[in-house]
């Protein structure tokens, strides 16, 4: 009974923790500019994320290693420095964007410039990690994130034609702005398949002491949780398409995005949007900060764990604190949070092959997954994903320049 409760909690928190700055901004832009035509991109990206998360969870439950630790052990310390460096850069930018997202949410409610909120929010993120344990952090943030279900309620209230929405799940080429369409497609994938999510997921599995008998929990949490979570992301796209699209309002700022809730929730619209944005970004900021500590500690072989006494994991604590401080410095330089989000999402795609390739090896190594190796379908999908990731990494920067 307790395990079923844990699975349900895991699925619910996955839903609440799915939406953050990257998914809100890319889905809203996609919806306003191309209607429902990019729904398929969210669906495909979610399948990729769920597949990789399930594999990362399998390595953690069976091999008792997080992704970063497994890659370091299997490929060597020198190789690990490459994905580590890339992931840290992305984590820094994404963290600055997420904290900026929370600050923008507060700005929507108070009217006070977002820069003023960066330091207090950074301090709050640090305090939650410092004072909390893994269960409180994961479940608390996930449950609060249920406010993002407002995007699904909005779609329900707006009642778009189901057939027209369903057509968005079939990939098609747009009649205009092909480069922009391609850029948004790749950005949606980058926003969904964030590297930090994978290592955070596997580290969480170790923090929660998953074992082989827990593999079914892993499968359900990754596929159901992320599957349902993606519905929220799709809710953002559909709401933006129905409300803002016909008005020709493009989402170039969070202030514009907030208008999508007004026809549905009236005077509560902006408040609900700000809560969804704020809570989603705050949850992501905590996860990225923690992940930066995890990935550094696991790469250098330090003691790590948010459930450990702080003095026993001093270098882990110093690592996540340093990354948080650096991201605050980036945020304080005054970049627009939405632009920062889009840039970091594009860069995420650049490093995707570095993240995906190790799965292909680890999922076929009995040392890490014992008899739970990937089958021919899993290996085929991983190989295809590696090639797709490499192709997207090649085109994303030109697309950012010409379509971003």
């Amino acid at each position: 009974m307790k395990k079923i409760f844990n699975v349900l909690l895991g699925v619910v928190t996955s839903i609440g923790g799915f939406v953050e700055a990257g998914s809100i901004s890319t889905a809203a832009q996609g919806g306003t500019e191309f209607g429902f035509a990019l729904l398929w991109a969210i669906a495909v990206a979610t399948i990729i994320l769920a597949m990789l998360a399930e594999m990362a969870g399998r390595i953690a439950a069976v091999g008792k290693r997080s992704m970063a630790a497994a890659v370091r052990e299997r490929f060597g310390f020198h190789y690990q420095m490459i994905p580590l460096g890339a992931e840290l850069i992305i984590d820094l930018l994404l963290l600055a964007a997420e904290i900026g997202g929370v600050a923008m949410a507060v700005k929507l409610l108070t009217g006070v410039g977002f820069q003023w909120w960066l330091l207090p929010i950074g301090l709050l993120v640090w305090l939650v990690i410092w004072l909390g344990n893994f269960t409180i952090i994961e479940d608390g943030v996930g449950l609060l994130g249920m406010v993002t279900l407002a995007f699904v309620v909005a779609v329900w209230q707006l009642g778009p034609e189901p057939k027209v929405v369903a057509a968005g799940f079939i990939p098609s080429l747009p009649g205009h702005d092909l480069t922009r369409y391609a850029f948004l497609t790749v950005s949606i994938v980058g926003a969904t398949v964030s590297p930090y999510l994978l290592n955070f997921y596997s580290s969480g599995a170790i923090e929660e002491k998953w074992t082989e008998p827990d593999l079914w929990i892993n499968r359900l949490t990754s596929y159901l949780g992320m599957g349902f979570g993606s519905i929220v992301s799709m809710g953002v796209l559909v709401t933006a398409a129905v409300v803002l699209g016909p008005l020709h309002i493009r989402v170039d700022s969070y202030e514009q995005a907030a208008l999508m809730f007004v026809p549905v929730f009236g005077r509560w619209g902006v408040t609900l949007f700000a809560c969804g944005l704020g809570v989603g970004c705050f949850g992501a900021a905590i996860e990225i900060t923690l992940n930066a500590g995890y990935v550094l500690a696991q790469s250098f072989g330090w003691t790590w764990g948010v459930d450990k006494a702080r003095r026993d994991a001093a270098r882990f604590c110093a690592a996540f604190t340093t990354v948080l401080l650096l991201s605050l410095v980036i945020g304080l330089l005054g970049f627009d949070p939405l632009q920062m989000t889009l840039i970091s999402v594009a860069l995420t795609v650049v490093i995707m092959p570095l993240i995906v390739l190790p799965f292909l090896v680890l999922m076929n190594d009995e040392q890490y997954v014992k008899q739970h190796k990937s089958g021919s379908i899993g290996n085929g999908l991983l190989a295809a994903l590696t090639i797709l990731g490499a192709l997207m990494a090649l085109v994303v920067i030109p697309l950012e320049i010409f379509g971003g």
Partner: protein
Amino acid sequence: MPHLLSILIGLSHLGCGSTQDLVNHQQQALTSLKATVTAVCDGWLDGNLSTTYARTALEGAATLLEKERATIGGSPDALANPALASLSQSEDQLARQIALLRKALADFDAAAVRQLMSAAGVRQSQLP
């Protein structure tokens, strides 16, 4: 190597973009910002949007508009193009309208907001 060079040259041409691309981009941006201003003011007049949010949103629109104006201003020959010159004028008008609307909002002057909106010739209640 020559192939790579020609691809790079092709991409750089794309990057420079034609004047028509700039016109299209400016047109889209202007339409979006006008619609944003309308939606914000309508929402405020209907009581659905707080003054705090409305002022924040107009400030955001003004910042975005400033970037678009700088794009035209940064291209010395752009104003020689009639379409861009016309768009530039419209952007200037919108910038002034936003400034006046922000002042009216700060004074909680609904009549002035209504007057400014009708003077700009925008329909109300465009949100579905």
